[in-house]
Structure formats: C-alpha cells, structure tokens
C-alpha cells in the first residue's frame, strides 16, 4: 500500500512542480516505485520539467472519463522505468475532474506504487481540492518571502482543517548570502512562523533553471539544490539526515575570490 503525497503551496511560482519532479525522481533513485500526477488541469508543466512532453497521448482527464485505461496514460520515465507520470490535460479546465474521481484514481495507483505524488495547482480552488482529496501527506513548498509564507500559512490551515495526517515544510530558493546580510528571512524564522515540521531547505540554484531547460531534474547531482532534494527524499523515507550546511560548500571560483577578500 503506497503513500500518497500532495505537493502544494498556495502561491504560484515557488517551485511545486520542480519539487515534485525532483522528489519523484529522487525516490525512484532510492529504488521506490513512484507515480507522479500532474493535477494542474489546463496548465500542465510537470511533463516539460521531466522532459516527457512528447510522449503524451492520453491524460488524467481521459483516464477519469474512461477514454483510456490507466495503464495507457502512464508515461514511463526515460531513465527510471519505475518512475511514471500521469500528465494533466492541457485543453480542459479544473472542473473536468472532481475529488471523488481523484480519490478513486489514487486508490488504484497506490495498490501498485510505493509513492503517489500529486503536483497541486496554485490557488485554493477546485484544482487544490482535487489534489488534496486523496492524499495522506502534504509537502508545503514556500520561499522565504512574505507573500509565499502568508499563502503557505493559509494552505496549512486548510490542510489541518481537512485533517491531513502529516504536513511537512519545504523551504525553497533560500539565498544564504541574503540571509547573512539580514535581507532574507532565516530558516528558523519561517519555521517559527508556520510552526510545522521542516523536511528540507533547498538553496536558490542556477542549476535548477539549467535542469528545467534540459528537462532533467537535478536531484542526486553534485549541485547544492540536487543534494538538498536528495536529502528530502531520504527524509520522506524516514531516514534521519542532518540538514546540510548551505554555506559550507562553495564553488572553486568563490573560494578563490574569498582569498582576496581577506
């Protein structure tokens, strides 16, 4: 019986889809059978981030409406055969699917997969309700910005009201240089304000953009963000992984420049 995790944030553009792609791939690297569902009907993105956009024949709405079998719509990842994507429909809108249908779908998938990841659309309307309906657990993604945190707080409130069993926080796009200057909220501050369990901190990393351009998530790679996502995956599996020192690892060039600063 697999676990169903919804990745949500409230605010758009904080990295839900990137997080879903990286966590999904990371869990697959760790040997789990994973299926990712893009629930953002009308604005699908997860397929592009994963580089699978050219394989889509059927989508979530087709499955729900019985136009195809579930197996037909699942797209296997190029490198990890145990990683599947159920893409969303680009040409429909959110009310093409209702929460009961999502629950039925998720129940079917969890029979076979270890993890079902639901990439939630921004906002708190129908799409959010659909995504949250079948989930056991939520990853709330936020950035250290007032607007994102405020929305995250609202989401946490809604999830708690909906009796979500487990809610974890992912802080994305943290910039240590700005934190040091005092111009960005600290990790502790964000945790303090939202008061939910922190499962990972992902530093702002140019490599994310590069990875998205290439359609290849960077989890597990040598970049800081890639390591951070890998750690999140391990923590999802219940491993105790210490939070990494985001300042400690600097590029060669930065180290070189440091010599001159002193």
């Amino acid at each position: 019986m697999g676990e169903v995790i919804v990745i949500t944030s409230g605010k758009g553009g904080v990295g839900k889809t990137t997080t879903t792609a990286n966590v999904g791939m990371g869990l697959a690297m760790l040997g789990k059978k994973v299926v990712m569902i893009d629930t953002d009907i009308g604005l699908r993105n997860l397929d592009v981030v994963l580089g699978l956009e050219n394989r889509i024949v059927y989508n979530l709405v087709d499955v729900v409406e019985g136009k195809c079998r579930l197996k037909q719509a699942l797209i296997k990842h190029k490198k990890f055969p145990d990683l599947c994507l159920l893409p969303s429909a680009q040409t429909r809108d959110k009310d093409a699917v209702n929460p009961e249908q999502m629950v039925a779908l998720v129940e079917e998938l969890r029979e076979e997969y270890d993890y079902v990841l639901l990439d939630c659309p921004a906002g708190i309307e129908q799409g959010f309700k659909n995504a949250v309906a079948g989930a056991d657990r939520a990853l709330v993604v936020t950035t250290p910005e007032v607007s994102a945190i405020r929305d995250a707080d609202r989401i946490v409130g809604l999830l708690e009201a909906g009796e979500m069993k487990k809610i974890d926080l992912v802080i994305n796009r943290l910039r240590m240089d700005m934190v040091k200057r005092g111009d960005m909220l600290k990790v502790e501050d964000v945790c303090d304000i939202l008061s939910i369990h922190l499962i990972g901190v992902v530093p702002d990393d140019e490599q994310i953009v590069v990875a998205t351009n290439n359609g290849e998530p960077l989890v597990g790679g040598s970049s800081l963000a890639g390591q951070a996502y890998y750690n999140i995956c391990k923590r999802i599996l219940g491993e105790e992984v210490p939070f990494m020192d985001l300042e400690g690892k600097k590029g060669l060039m930065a180290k070189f420049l440091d010599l001159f600063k002193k």
Partner: protein
Amino acid sequence: MTKEVIIKSNKYGMELILDDKLPFPELLDIIRDRFQESGNFFKNAKMAVSFKGRSLTGEEELSIVDAIMENSPIQIVSIMDLAGVQEERMKERLDAFQESQGGSVAQKSSARGTGSASRQSGAGQKTQGQSGSGRKAEAVPGQQANFQNGFYKGNLRSGQVLECPESVTLIGDVNPGARIESAGNVVILGALKGTACAGSGGDNSCFIFALDMQPIQLQIGEYIAKSPDREKESRHLFKREKAAPAAYNPQIAVARRGTIYIEPMTKGCLDNL
C-alpha cells in the same frame, strides 16, 4: 484491447461505437465487462448515450442501457439519435432539460422501474445530453470568424484545439501544447510545434504538411509518432554549427508500413500521395 466496443465520453454523455458483425448477446457481454472495469470513474454520472457503427433495434438499445446501469453507477437519462451529433447542441439540450426538469433527472429513471431510459425520437426533437469527440474544452477564440471552408487563419496557442471534420489548412503556427485535428489531411502554412493529428477517424492515408516541421507529436490514422528525445548538447565546440539558422524546410508527414515518416516536400512526394 477489444475493438468491438469503443466508449467515447465527455462531461455530458458518451458514445458507444459498436462492432456490427458480432452477435448481439456477445456484444452485450463485452459492454458489461467494459463498464464493470471503467464504470467507477463515472460516479453517479447522469449521461446521455448514443450508438454508432451498428444499427440496433429499440429493444437492443434498451438492453444495452440496462447493462450499463447494472454494471456501473452511471445513470443513462436518454438515448441519442446518432446522426451528426454535435457537442454544443447537445449541451444546450442538456442544460435546457435540467432547467425544465430541475433535479428530477434521477427520479425520472428510477420511476420507470426497469431503470431504462426512454427513447425520444424525432429528428428535430432529439434529447438532451451529448457525446462525440468532445475535446473542445477551450474553443479557439474567434473560431467561427476565422474558420471558413476548411481554412483557419491565426495561431493556435497552448491548450487550444482545432478540430475539423474534413481536411484543414491552417495559416499560422501551431504552438507547443496546441493541437490540430482533422479527419482528413492537415496543411499548416506556418510552424508546427505542437501536436497534429490527421485522419482522426482512422484513415492512415492522410498526410500532415508544415512549412516548418518541429512537432511534439504526430498522429496519422492509428499511428502516433513522438519527436525524438533531445540528445544532451554537451559538446560546446559544435554548438555554433548547430545554431546556424535553418532555412524554411517544408516537410510532409505520411504513414507507411506502420511508421510515420517525415520527408522534405519534393515533387516526387506529390506523386506518392
């Protein structure tokens, strides 16, 4: 995959495309199985149904409806006459029906005891509900104005779908995420960067033509081809060469021996069509 029964559905109804050679009882069994499999997705949906591909007697239609309702939570509120069913028109009818009937749709079928839907006939007075290809969630803006005699002018953007019952010529681009679909041929006087589908009714002899062929996916009849996965461009040395601007290169896609081929548009190509 059974081809004997094909279920096409949308929000308002569904269409069963039935094999016309199979004996009726066998067909009925297949329908039962299919709805037992997939029926859970339509939880308590109220739908209209239409039949295609086989002529059925009134009695046969009713037994199919019974089979559907017994094996799934779907409630069939009416049977559509199939000829030329159009989604828009059907939706209108459904809305009108729901307005006039209020919440009595469920009542209507349960009150009948057998649970069967009534057949409402008469060419002008077909019933509510809809079926058909029904993918038109987002109509192309100004489709009416821009669409004339199989010519469409304008760009198709992500999420937009242009569906045509016959061959279509698009003057403009098909962007990634957009889809152009035709039962006949597709000619794009512009760039094809999205998905194109020719011969959507299953005709493998159709072609897709584009001035700039960079599709995400091509479908011709029953065949589907996806664009090749990009190779990692790690060789910086060669990058400059690759980036050289490609001249417009009109290409045509055809299906031959089970594969979709993309070829430059030459005179020889024309002879083969």
